[in-house]
């Protein structure tokens, strides 16, 4: 599976779209707000950005979250420059995601967005330029030294490819009956994943180091774990239950066993230690902060955002928590699963998945671990 060609969040604004099912990711963005603010303010204080500030969001996806993040960052810059009396720098804002991302969806909202900027903050068209830079962030995306602040949320747990040792087009399947690291997986499965993560994350840092100015900041949020055990529930359970749903369909002859054996998620949730050591080895960035937050599988208590509150209320009328969670997972993984298992089984698969999640909820408070890292580009 060619990840960069296949992976994309579900497009549009329909029932199963990412736009309608991304409250978890929104929660993740909001827990990092104070860290983002700290980083942006430091950038401004260093006067690196006096005339023109380059800001990038890597893995921007589409839907309401995309412009929400940008809006937050602009708010911080605006608030700060107001306080210090400095003029607002020209804002160059770059939205990046894979070429298959639904950029059209974001663009349609831009005229309104610009209008609000003008009305609320008197930021004119020549003060703020928002563009899209499609491509994989495991590679160069931007011209040298063109960025001051880079943000990436809910993206870096996606690997550039399924780890080579697990690519069963070449080798016998190593991870039978499973689609990610699990308690029963061989240690070689974990080794393969960790090795792929290290390679990808180092490449990510190396590329960004060329694009970010000295003193510029990077704030990254992605799925991880606090446990040293790579098969811990906090980092694997969502995949474990998905594998169980698939295997139940195998038992009924609805899905071929071989298909499950040959599918492995191009995903890795590293431990804080693994992240730290990769950053230190790559050596282009100093670590300002490395924190872990617990995020409920269903996004937890409603955030401060009124818009999402409305959606939560409507959804909660008719759906169980398991069904809600299943929708958020479906919006993210469907593109990959469809290619491998076929579109026909998706409805049934996620129906079963929802039931398994509801079961799991009855005994456990299901949580993801979200790592938030704040970095500064070294000399």
């Amino acid at each position, binding site marked *: 599976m060619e990840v960069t060609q296949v992976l994309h969040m579900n497009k549009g604004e329909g029932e199963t779209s990412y736009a309608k099912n991304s409250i978890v990711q929104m929660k993740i963005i909001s827990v990092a707000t104070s860290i983002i603010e700290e980083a942006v303010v430091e950038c401004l204080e260093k006067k690196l950005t006096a005339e023109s500030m380059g800001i990038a969001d890597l893995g921007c996806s589409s839907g309401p979250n995309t412009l929400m993040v940008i809006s937050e960052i602009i708010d911080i810059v605006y608030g700060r420059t107001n306080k210090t009396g400095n003029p607002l720098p020209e804002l160059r804002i770059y939205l990046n995601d894979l*070429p*298959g991302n639904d950029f059209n969806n974001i663009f349609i909202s831009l*005229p309104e967005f610009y209008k609000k900027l003008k009305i609320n903050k008197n930021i004119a068209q020549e003060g703020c330029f928002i563009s*899209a830079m499609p491509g994989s962030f495991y590679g*160069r995306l931007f011209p040298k030294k063109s960025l001051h602040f880079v943000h990436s949320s809910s993206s870096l747990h996606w690997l550039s490819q399924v780890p080579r040792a697990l690519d069963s087009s070449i080798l016998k399947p190593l991870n039978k009956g499973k689609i990610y690291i699990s308690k029963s997986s061989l240690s070689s499965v974990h080794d393969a994943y960790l090795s792929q993560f290290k390679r990808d994350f180092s490449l990510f840092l190396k590329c960004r180091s060329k694009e970010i100015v000295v003193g510029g900041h990077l704030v990254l949020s992605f799925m991880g774990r606090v446990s040293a055990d790579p098969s811990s529930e906090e980092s694997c359970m969502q995949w474990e239950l998905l594998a169980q749903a698939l295997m139940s369909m195998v038992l009924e002859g609805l899905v071929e066993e071989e298909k499950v054996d040959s599918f492995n998620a191009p995903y890795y949730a590293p431990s804080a230690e693994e992240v730290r050591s990769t950053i230190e080895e790559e050596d282009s960035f100093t670590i300002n902060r490395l924190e872990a937050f617990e995020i409920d599988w269903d996004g937890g208590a409603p955030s401060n955002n009124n818009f999402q509150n409305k959606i939560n209320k409507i959804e909660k009328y008719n759906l169980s928590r398991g069904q809600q969670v299943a929708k958020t997972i479906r919006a993210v993984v469907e593109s990959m699963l469809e290619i491998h298992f076929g579109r026909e089984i998706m409805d049934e698969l996620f129906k079963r998945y929802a039931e398994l999640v509801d079961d799991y909820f009855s005994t456990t408070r299901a949580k993801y671990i979200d790592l938030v890292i704040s970095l500064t580009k070294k000399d």
Partner: protein
Amino acid sequence: MDLEKVFHMKGGLGETSYSKNSSLQKRAADKVKHITLEAIEEMFVESRPKSLGIADLGCSSGPNTLSNIKELVNAIERGSRKLFEPAPEFRVYLNDLPTNDFNTIFQALPDLYRELKKGKKHGNPSIYIAGYPGTFYGRLFPDKCLHFIYSSNSLHWLSRVPPGIYNEKGESINRKGIYISENSPPRVAQAYFQQFKHDFSLFLRSRSEEVVIGGRMVLILLGRNGPNHVDRGTAFLWEILYRSLATLVSKGEIEEEKLDSYEVHFYAPSKEEVEDEIRKDGSFKLDRFEMFEIEKDTGNSSSSYGKAMAMTVRSIQESMISHHFGEAILDNLFEEYGRLVDEEMAKEDIRSISFVLVLQKL
């Protein structure tokens, strides 16, 4: 109606998409390719930037967009080789209205990058292609970031239908047409001309902040020969569209009132009108101005010229027509359109004129 939210070429890759129906636009661009390439090469030799900004304004969606980029990048690479210098870093800015189908262009980017980098030293050329949605009647890009602007078949689209063609009651005074025609009251032509002046001067003013001194702009757009506003070549296609719509009115498929109120946001300027605005703006000098015609495509004999024209115009106008009249009439409308084009072309070979301008930033 906010044009920015409605107007776009038909997206995707289907039968009626712009992607599949833009060979006419390609032939226009190809016809003056030598002028485009000369302009960018001249600019490059004069300024030798290490980081080169190139923008395509009204890039649309489809094979033309990416083949343009390829040609421009190849031209600069050739230029660099001749000077025994490494190629510059390329910053490519693709602009169109927010409703343009950028997704389809973006999905084709990985292949384009691969093609550009094939057989070259690792990572070369350094090229970064981004999409900048927005109207070019206003600022689009950061200060002084561009060395070369290309805009093909976009500047004849106005920012809006001129308000001057509506009376105090909000009704159009251009009742027997959808563009300037023989039946139009003189005020109509004046209103369109005023809107063009407003738009084109805003275009020039905005670009003047974005283009470096010595930077070049190559603009290709439909125009007309001579001062007379009623020009056979450009008005032809709109008249046919009007007559096709009128046919549907007579068949009861469209309300007459809907047709009366439909006007296009288009203007084909004369050479003098264009030169005037450039002179008045004062930030650019006109290095070159040529007029050309595109020959009928005699290659494809499987469908009639009329049908091909109908498909081309449909991919361009569909968004506006369906917004005003609804989608149901589209098939019938363009069938009639194709038939009328063939009928008229049998009587007389009518061609529209295009302009190609090369401007240099002072």
